[in-house]
C-alpha cells in the first residue's frame, strides 16, 4: 500500500534525529544542516549531472587500467615477482582463505566497478527530461556499493605492505599503484559532485506505474 505524499516538497526530516523541518532554497554549493543534531541534510551542487558524468567516465577508464596492469613488484637476489589487484585475491583463494578472498574481491573489484557503473547509468538516465523509474532502482543500491568500495583503504594497506617488504627485498611500485592513487581522488570527487536530491526530483514515481497498470483494461478485468 502506497503512502500519500506530502505535497510540500521542501519538507524534510533528519534521518539522524527525526526532526521535521523545511529545507531552505540553496545556492549551488550551499548546504543545509539539521539545527538539532547538525547532520548535513542537503548540499546543492553546481552543474551536478555533467560533472558527475565526466568524473565517472574518468573513474571508469582509471579502474580498467588499474585492474589490467601490475600493481606491485619485487626483486630479491635475482628473482622477480609481481602482482595485480586480482593477484592478491587469487593468492588468498589458493591458500584456502576463500571467504577472505571473496571479501577482498567484493571490496576492491566488484563494489568499485558497481559504484562507477551504476553512477554512469544513473547520470545518463537522469540527463533525460524525465528520469525513468529504473534510475530510482539504481539510486537505491548505489549507497551500498559506496559503503563496500574500499579502494582508498586498500591503498593504505598496499603502502604498509610495501614498507614491510622493503626490509627484505627491492620493491618496484607498478603503474596500477599510481593509477589507483588517482582513482581514489576521482571517486571522491565523483561522489562529491553528485546531488541525489536533484535526481530524485526528476524521477518518475513508482506509484504512477501502479496507476498505469491498474488503468490497463486487462488488469481491470482481472480484478
Amino acid at each position, binding site marked *: 500500500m502506497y503512502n500519500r505524499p506530502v505535497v510540500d516538497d521542501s519538507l524534510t526530516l533528519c534521518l539522524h534525529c*527525526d526532526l521535521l523541518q523545511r529545507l531552505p532554497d540553496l545556492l549551488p554549493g550551499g548546504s543545509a544542516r539539521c539545527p538539532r543534531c547538525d547532520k548535513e541534510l542537503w548540499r546543492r551542487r553546481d552543474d551536478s549531472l555533467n560533472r558527475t558524468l565526466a568524473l565517472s567516465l574518468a573513474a571508469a577508464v582509471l579502474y580498467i587500467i588499474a585492474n589490467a596492469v601490475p600493481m606491485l613488484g619485487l626483486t630479491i637476489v635475482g628473482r622477480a615477482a609481481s602482482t595485480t589487484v586480482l593477484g592478491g585475491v587469487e593468492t588468498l583463494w589458493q591458500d584456502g582463505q576463500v571467504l577472505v578472498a571473496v571479501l577482498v574481491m567484493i571490496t576492491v573489484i566488484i563494489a568499485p566497478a558497481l559504484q562507477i557503473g551504476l553512477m554512469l547509468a544513473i547520470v545518463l538516465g537522469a540527463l533525460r527530461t524525465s528520469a525513468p523509474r529504473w534510475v530510482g532502482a539504481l539510486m537505491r543500491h548505489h549507497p551500498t556499493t559506496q559503503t563496500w568500495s*574500499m579502494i582508498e583503504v586498500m591503498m593504505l594497506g598496499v603502502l604498509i605492505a610495501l614498507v614491510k*617488504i622493503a626490509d627484505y627485498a627491492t620493491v618496484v611500485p607498478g603503474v596500477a599503484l599510481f593509477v589507483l592513487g588517482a582513482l581514489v581522488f576521482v571517486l571522491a570527487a565523483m561522489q562529491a559532485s553528485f546531488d541525489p536530491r536533484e535526481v530524485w526530483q526528476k524521477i518518475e514515481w513508482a506509484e504512477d506505474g501502479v496507476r498505469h497498470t491498474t488503468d490497463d483494461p486487462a488488469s481491470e478485468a482481472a480484478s
Partner: protein
Amino acid sequence: MSSSAPAESYPTAMQEGLHGCAVCGLISRPAPGAEEGRCPRCNEELAFRKRASVQRTWAYLLAAAICYVPANLLPVLTTTTATGTESDTILQGVVLLWSPTGWPLSLIVLVASIMIPSAKILALAYLLVTAQRGSVKNNTQRVRLYRVVEFIGRWSMVDVFVDTFTAALIQLQPLMSVAPAPGLLFFAAVVVLTMLAAESFDPRLIWDAANSKEEVHG
C-alpha cells in the same frame, strides 16, 4: 552554509505521523492506522524506525565480539623461510613493523586493527544500552559518536589488505613465502560484522526518549 528553519518545539516526523524515506528522502503519510507503507516515489518499504534495529544491532555486535577473540589470538600470517616457519598475530605484526623509520605505519596498524574494532564494539554497545534505557542525556554527543563509528569502520580493513598483498607478493619458494593464516578470517569477520551493526542501528532511537518526554511536558 545555511541552517534550515530553526524549530523551537522540535516536531518529529513520528509525532506528526509521517514517514521519511531513507532511500529518496520523500516525506509521506501512511494510510490511517497503518504503521508501514511504501514510498510512492521510490517504492521503498517505509516504517517510522529501522525494523528491529536494536535486536539486529545487538546480534551483529555479539557476533563481532565473539570473533574478536580468535581474531586477536590466532595468527594472521605464516612466514616460511629456509630456517623455519613463523606465525604472527595482528599484535605481533604491529611489533614487527615498529622500527625507527617504520613506526608511523606500525601506529596506523595498531589504531586501525586493534583500537578501532574494540572502540567500535564498545561505542555501539553504549549507544544501544543508553537508547534502551531511554537516556535523554548527551544526545548530540551520542549522535556524533554514531557518525564517527559509521565513518571510521571501513578503515579497519587495512590489515586485511596488508596481509593480502604481502602474501601475494612474497611467493619466493623455497627462499621465503608468506601465506594468510586462520586469524585473518575472524579479523575480516569482525570488520564486516561491526560495519553491519553500525548500519542496522537507527540513530533516531537516541532521540526518542527525549521526544516522548517533550510530549508529556508540552
